[in-house]
């Protein structure tokens, strides 16, 4: 009765669209250069890793202390 993978397309196709637009703007917008966009992508990836990595470490501590 429902399209079962709609969530994937909803997220990666529609909800993420502004993110793709931003990346495209970074890359091809003026003044055109690649160095700072790459640093920006580094921040994006780095922050993701820090956020979830931090959470993972915290989870391990919880596991040891309480479960």
């Amino acid at each position, binding site marked *: 009765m429902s399209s079962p993978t*709609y969530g*994937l397309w909803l997220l990666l196709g529609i909800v993420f669209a*502004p993110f793709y637009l931003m990346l495209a703007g970074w890359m091809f917008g003026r003044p055109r250069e690649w160095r700072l966009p790459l640093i920006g992508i580094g921040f994006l990836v780095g922050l993701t890793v820090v956020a*979830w990595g931090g959470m993972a470490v915290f989870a391990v501590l919880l596991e040891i202390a309480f479960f």
Partner: protein
Amino acid sequence: MSTTITEPPEGSRIAGTEPQLTARDRAVLRPLGRPSPRYLVTLGIALAGAVWFAQGWVFQLRHGLVVTGLSDWGTGGGVPWGLYIGSFIWWVGIAHGGIVVSAAVRLLGLEKLRPVARLAELLTLAALANAGLYIVLHLGRPERIVTSILPNLPQTIRSSPLAWDVTVITLYFVMTGTYLALTIRHDLYEVRDRLPRVLRPLYRVVLVGYRNGERPKAERMAWWLALGVIVLAPLFLHGGVIPWLFALLPGTPAWFGPVQGPQFLAAALTSAMGAVTILAYVFRRLYRWDELIDDQVFDGLARWTGLFALLYLWLQLQQVITGAAMAPTGLGTVAAAKLADPLFWLAMVLLAATVGHVGVQLLAPRLFSVGRTAAVAVLPVLAVLIDKTLFVVEGTMEPAFGLYHDLGSSYAPSWVEWSSVLGAFSIVLLFFLVAVKTVPLLELGEAE
């Protein structure tokens, strides 16, 4: 990649000396000095709040969620989602302040709000961290949050709104952090000699690959970021995956339906503008920034708050009228329950007072007062917490399965849950107490 925090790439070492700074910039940098007694007292209060919250949480971790006021819905007579989820919605909403102000400045050219742009961005980071904290607090098995969610995301993202939430909040958090980093690099480089030496490794990370001439590109990238986030956050986070957590469930008439997206968004923007107003006022008072954060800022923020509060009330009206007039059984019950709840009316009165206050100031500009504007800003912020928590609770109290109604249900948050509200405040306070000593809270002007 080389870092250049201590050595300018060309020329002699001249940066960081007083003559380079304008009077305005010196005022911006005023908080960076040694902590005052008042600062230390505030720090003590924030730490005490955080410690109180922590012991409450440890109590919950040891004994389970039995220490909350929650229970199973249906025969359990309670609600499985309560103040934690209400607060989660609330903090994600407040997090919208940062992007709205930044977007207003960068995309719409509303320069008069620029002084509070960075404050608002910082508030976004702190508020999103609190939202994440509330998800962890809400869980029965928080120690599994990474191992159970991340590896299964490719599966769960197909249909689980909560999986979407986790994804989009991460994206919003990461984009906001990157925005802050890109726009603060120049300032950090300019004042690098005044920053605390202990945190040098952190500054080094933020300044990775910094070059003197990068500012135009950085500004342009910030523009694209603002454009991306101004679509992502309002339309797809608080007008999207957060309301979809509820609006897609057919068994709960209080939640189901297409109005929740706009309704949540209006709530988010109202509380966010209120929160930015309060924050701006506090910092203006503390650091005598009357010139830097001038009256215009508060006038602008108050108008936005009033407009959003009006929209919020209007959407409530839509919901109530469709539930009260000729509604099918489920919706009718929900509307009746809502209209009978004094807390609902309290929230509506708080919002109406906000709108009224702005209206009076518009009609009689001589009555404008910064202090009162900041005081009134507390009302919509509170109203949203009350209304959104009620909304969460209503859902499972008024299910489509009519037989449960006769069993009755109730919910009152326990001391552990209330402690978390205090804790979240303390965390924001701590966050800003650290920020005020480590980064320029307002954007520096062109120094040279």
